[in-house]
Structure formats: structure tokens, C-alpha cells
């Protein structure tokens, strides 16, 4: 169980880094830290969580990236801190999964490919994973950089309806 002591130490140092950053951003927020044995999850909560989240979670993503760069500096260390605010990431995953299912239904019904709006690699992954076992559609990412998006293809295009 020497592992759990190392985990606790890393968890606290990651939480400390995020608190220090938020403090200097002038954001009034508390940070709670927990881990699931694989990842460290830092959740910022307080009246200003909107500022911490940013547009479509862009500020959360930037904070997460920086905290990982700072905490896991040594070569070979793997980034494993997730930065969240008031459970936003979980809520966004749920709503992305709902959107994916709705658009899959549309692709099946129309027999035509349905493009999803361009989104981050993380969000595209949620769409792919949600529809991985869907009987009626397949998914592929298309486009480059900021315009990269998931396209949902019907498996068996229906014969052209009159």
C-alpha cells in the first residue's frame, strides 16, 4: 500500500498548483481533490466557476494542460490530472452523448451522413465512444485542426424514399 501514500502526495501537490493558479487569476474558488486509482480529479467550485470553465470548457482544458505540465515534468511521467469545475465535464459528457444519439437517429432515418459540429479531440472521442456499439451507424472524424468534426454515417442507406 505504498502506492496510496504516493497518490495522496501527488493529489495534494496537483491541488496546490491549481489553487495557486486560480488564486493569481483572482478567482474565488475551492478545490477538492480525489482519485480513482487511475486519475487525479480536481474539482473547482465556488461562485466563479463559469470563469474557470470558459467557452465549451476551453479554460478548463487549458488549466488541465498546464497543471499536468507542471506536476508531471519528468520525462516518462504520464499526464493524469483531470481539472473540472462543479462536475461540468460529466454534465457535458452526458449532453454530448445525448446529442450523438439524436444525430445517429437522424442519420439512420434519412440514410445520409450527418456531420456533428467541429469539437475538441476529447469531445469527438465521447461521440465516437457513445456510438461505437450502435447497430445502425458508424462514425469517422474528418477535417483538419479547428474544423475537425465527427461525421455519422448510416450503415445501410435506405432506398431513396419518394
Amino acid at each position, binding site marked *: 500500500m505504498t502506492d496510496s501514500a504516493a497518490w495522496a502526495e501527488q493529489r495534494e501537490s496537483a491541488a496546490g*498548483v491549481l489553487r*495557486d*493558479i486560480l*488564486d*493569481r*487569476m*483572482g*478567482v474565488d474558488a475551492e478545490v477538492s481533490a480525489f482519485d480513482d486509482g487511475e486519475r487525479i480529479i480536481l474539482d473547482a467550485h465556488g461562485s466563479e466557476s463559469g*470563469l*474557470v470553465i*470558459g467557452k465549451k470548457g*476551453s*479554460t478548463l*482544458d*487549458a*488549466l488541465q*494542460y*498546464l497543471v499536468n*505540465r*507542471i506536476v508531471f515534468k519528468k520525462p516518462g511521467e504520464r499526464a493524469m490530472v483531470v481539472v473540472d469545475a462543479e462536475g461540468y465535464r460529466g454534465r457535458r459528457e452526458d449532453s454530448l452523448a445525448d446529442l450523438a444519439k439524436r444525430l445517429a437517429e437522424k442519420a439512420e432515418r434519412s440514410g445520409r451522413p450527418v456531420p456533428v459540429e467541429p469539437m475538441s479531440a476529447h469531445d469527438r472521442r465521447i461521440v465516437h465512444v457513445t456510438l461505437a456499439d450502435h447497430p445502425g451507424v458508424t462514425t469517422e472524424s474528418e477535417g483538419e485542426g479547428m474544423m475537425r468534426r465527427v461525421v455519422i454515417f448510416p450503415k445501410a442507406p435506405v432506398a431513396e424514399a419518394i
Partner: protein
Amino acid sequence: MTEGSDSPLAGDLNAPPLRELVLFLARSLVEHPDQVEVEEIEESDALVFELKVAESDLGRVIGRQGRTAKALRTVLSAASAKTRRRVILEILE
């Protein structure tokens, strides 16, 4: 360094100076924190921060494909929403 609370440009009086944020992030990312310098330049339409680090640390503040620099700018602009000023981060090479 700070102009005091009567400056019309001060924005949110409770917000700490953004220079501290840039300094903290840069010092935390690099291998030679003692060589981190941040110059703050007031321009009419924006506040510019010029960041200088040891040559061997440049990659640590820029990152692969500029990812670290982009994250720094995103966090800085989120923080600047409180000061209501446009903020620009320049990394000197």
C-alpha cells in the same frame, strides 16, 4: 508597480496583478525559474506581457505545436475578463 485604486484602468480592485499569474505559471513550468523575466507594457488598447526564459526552457513555455503557449494565453485571457482589458502574451525568443 501598481497605480493604486484610483486608476480608471484598474478594473476589479480585488483582482491581483496579472503579472503575478504570468510569473507564477512560467516559473512553475521551467527548469530555471530564476531566469524568468516578465515585462509589463501598457499600450493604449491592451496590456502586453513580454515573457523571457532561459533558452533551454523555451520549449517548456511554448510546448509541442505551441500548445503550452496557447494554454497560457487562454488562462491569461480568462483572468483578464475581470480587469476588462485586452491582454497579450508575447514569448521572446
